[in-house]
């Protein structure tokens, strides 16, 4: 077999191997893909030179097995890393603060003097803060649950999950309502989501107090932010007129989460990164 034929056979193998590298997560591929291809090429030349075509077949079988196993490992790890290092976890205090601020801002809509089915002007603008606030709070709660998954008890874990789902539900219901405006069920779905979100604040707050993860005031603020809507919103007249109590209640809930987010923002983050690195090289 001449050297040119040998070279083209190996180079074809390398091209196929490079194509298979696309199965790896992008970041891993960008950082190590070319190095892996380089090692594959070096080894392929050695195998082809020493063992010929049969050796190459065995080498390919071994490489494919290695590729499948390591792709699964990198994908699984990436999931772990992106969850523990992801923007949602990393920025969870900011998401909670933004969510709280938007929710508080949306409270202005309750000051509209007439009916609350058609918001206008500043009331309409402030009402637009509600879906954004809910999404940010849902993402923030999800991040909170992931970030402190080792510290939360069962109540906190389920609470943060319930809050994530509960926060997204009204947002989705609102979007669907734009497409299907006359479906009453969407209103009930949205309200159920909101109730679940507020209930989750109470659950998470209780768990924070039970587990003594943070200072007591953090858990208490969570509980207050969960109980307030259930008390304040029903006290106001329905749908017509200025709803001062609802306004105050919503601002209070939003303010609580701004304070909680601000506390979590200053919470040390070193622990987040320490364990995965050591665990990754241990058996």
């Amino acid at each position, binding site marked *: 077999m001449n050297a040119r034929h040998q070279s083209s056979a190996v180079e074809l193998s390398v091209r196929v191997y490079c194509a298979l590298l696309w199965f790896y997560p992008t970041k891993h591929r960008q950082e*190590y893909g070319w190095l892996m*291809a*380089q*090692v594959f090429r070096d080894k392929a030349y050695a195998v082809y030179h020493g063992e010929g075509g049969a050796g190459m077949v065995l080498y390919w079988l071994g490489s494919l097995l290695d590729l499948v196993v390591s792709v699964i490992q990198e994908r699984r790890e990436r999931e772990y890393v992106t969850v523990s290092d992801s923007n949602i976890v990393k920025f969870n205090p900011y998401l909670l603060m933004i969510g709280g601020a938007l929710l508080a801002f949306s409270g202005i809509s309750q000051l509209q003097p007439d009916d609350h089915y058609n918001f206008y002007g500043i009331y309409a603008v402030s009402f637009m803060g509600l879906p954004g606030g809910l999404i940010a709070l849902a993402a923030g709660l999800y991040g909170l649950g992931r970030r402190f998954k080792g510290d939360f008890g069962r109540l906190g874990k389920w609470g943060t999950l319930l809050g994530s789902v509960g926060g997204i539900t009204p947002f989705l219901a609102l979007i669907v309502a734009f497409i299907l405006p006359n479906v009453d069920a969407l209103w009930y779905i949205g309200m159920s989501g909101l109730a679940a979100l507020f209930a989750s604040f109470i659950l998470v707050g209780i768990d924070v107090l039970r587990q003594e993860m943070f200072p007591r005031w953090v858990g208490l603020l969570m509980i207050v932010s969960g109980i307030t809507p259930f008390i304040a919103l029903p006290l106001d007249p329905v749908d017509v007129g200025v709803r001062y109590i609802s306004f105050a209640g919503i601002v209070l809930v939003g303010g609580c989460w701004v304070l909680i987010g601000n506390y979590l923002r200053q919470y040390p983050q070193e622990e987040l990164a320490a364990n995965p*690195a050591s665990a*990754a090289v*241990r058996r």
Partner: protein
Amino acid sequence: MSQTKMRPEDMLPLTPAVFHILLALADGEKHGYAIMQEVEAVSGGTVNMGAGTLYGSIKRMLQAGLIEESDERPDPEIDHQQRRYYRLSNFGERVLKAESFRLEAIVRAARDKKILGGTS
């Protein structure tokens, strides 16, 4: 980051791939393919590390502070290809020693039980 504060024992037991890579780097810095060759030679061909396993392990070892990427490049006439070289960190050296002692204790126990033909 906290690796420097960690004790070598906290990293044990190592995966076979990580232990072999540390061992391969014990006598100097090497690039990926050289590590792969060394591992194969030291293990008598029983450990055949693919490129995926090799660089997956290297990535995690860099993150754990066991190895470092070397800034120095060997003589371009010896190695004209663009490669990345890795070397043991001080922490990696301590972890390698700790793991070697751990394995040695296991081998000693096996010897005591006459599995390896009696006490040496």
